[in-house]
Structure formats: C-alpha cells, structure tokens
C-alpha cells in the first residue's frame, strides 16, 4: 500500500531532497516524483565530498599549495551534507504525515 521510501545507501551515497518542499501527490503516483526528488542533487553532495577528499589527499602528501583550498572545500562538503540530512529527515516526516492522512 505504501510505496517504500528509497533506501538510504552507504554513507557516501547520501541523497539530498533538493526539491521536496511541495510533495506533488500523496498517493502512489506521488511516490515516483518523491523518489526523483530524493535523487535530485545527489551528485552535488557526492561531488563536494569527493572534491574535499581529493584535496585532503593532496594536503597529506604535501602537494597542496594553499591550505585554505582544502578547508573551504571541506566546509562546503560539511554544509551540503548537513543540509541534505536535514532535508531528508524533514521530507520523511512530511511523507509520513501525508501517508498518515490516508485512510
């Protein structure tokens, strides 16, 4: 009856819900666009994390010229991850609320 929420994968496969402010449909039809919305922006967070990781490896092997490059990238990755996590939990809450409204 209830369409399953897309599973949360490994830590690195975080899926932010960038456009989920207005769930377009409460029923199964809304499930498809909900999954799309969960998937949207996934690449952005992945990209930010792996960019920060790459710069961290450069810093570790002494090849990074400017340390602020790494700290800025790490801050961006941390903020995007936090935002993704927050949006996802709010989206799950909203989804469950709407689901609970159905008979």
């Amino acid at each position, binding site marked *: 009856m209830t369409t399953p929420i897309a599973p949360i994968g490994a830590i690195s496969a975080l899926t932010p819900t960038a456009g989920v402010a207005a769930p377009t449909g409460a029923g199964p039809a809304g499930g498809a666009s909900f999954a799309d919305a969960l998937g949207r922006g996934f690449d952005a967070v992945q990209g930010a994390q792996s960019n920060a990781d790459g710069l961290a490896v450069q*810093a570790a092997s*002494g090849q*990074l*010229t*400017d*340390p*602020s490059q790494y*700290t*800025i990238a*790490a*801050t961006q990755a*941390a*903020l995007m991850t*936090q935002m993704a996590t927050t949006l996802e939990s709010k989206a799950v809450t909203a989804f469950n609320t709407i689901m609970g409204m159905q008979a």
Partner: protein
Amino acid sequence: MFDAISTSGTGLTTYRTWLDVIANNIANVNDVSPTSGPAFQAQYVQAQPIDGGPDGAGQGVAVTGLPSSSAAGVLEYDPNNPVADANGYVRRPDIDMSEQMGNLIMAQRAFQANANVVERSTDIYKAAIDIGKGI
C-alpha cells in the same frame, strides 16, 4: 604548503650566516701577520635569489659564496712587533670597523624582519586552517 615560512627560513639562514661572518671579521680585526704571508682576509657574503615557486613567487635567498677581501691588507710600520720584517713592517687586515658595524645592524634588522614574516605567516595560515571549524 606553507611556502612563506620556508622562504623566510632561507632569509633567516642567510642573515645568520652574515652575522657569523661579521662576527668573525670583527674578532680578527687586530690580527697582525708578517709581511711574508697574507693578512687576515675579511669575508663577504654573496647571496642569490632562489627562483620558481609553485605560484611563481620565488623561494627565498641562498648564500652562493663567501669571497674574501685582499690578502695584502694594510702595511703598518711597527718595528717593535715580534713578527715585523727587516724594514719594521707588519700586515694588518684591511677591515673598516664602521662598515662592519653598519653591516651588523643591517643583518640584525633583516633577520628580525624575516622572523616577523614567519610569525605573521603562521597567524595567516592558522586562520586558513580554522575556516569552517565547528561547522
């Protein structure tokens, strides 16, 4: 990483070398030598810039040589000196004390300036490292 500190470090090393050289020159300013040999030769520090950092900024200074001044020194008439030659002359080093003292002050100021750069660069790098702390 943190290249400004390495660059200032080369300055510290170079000016400390200059300080050692000046100290040696001043310590030996009254060395008396017989005319048969060389006088004490004051040393100078020859320095060249090091080119080509990762962002093109240059990487400091290096000592490339310690040339000596003339071996002839200054002939002085001092017949009572035990090393005086048949005509009563001895050799003294050709060192100008005021020049050495002026160099000493320059070396000290330059060393202090480089140490200052190390300190300020450390503060700047710490600020860069602290970006995003606590997020």
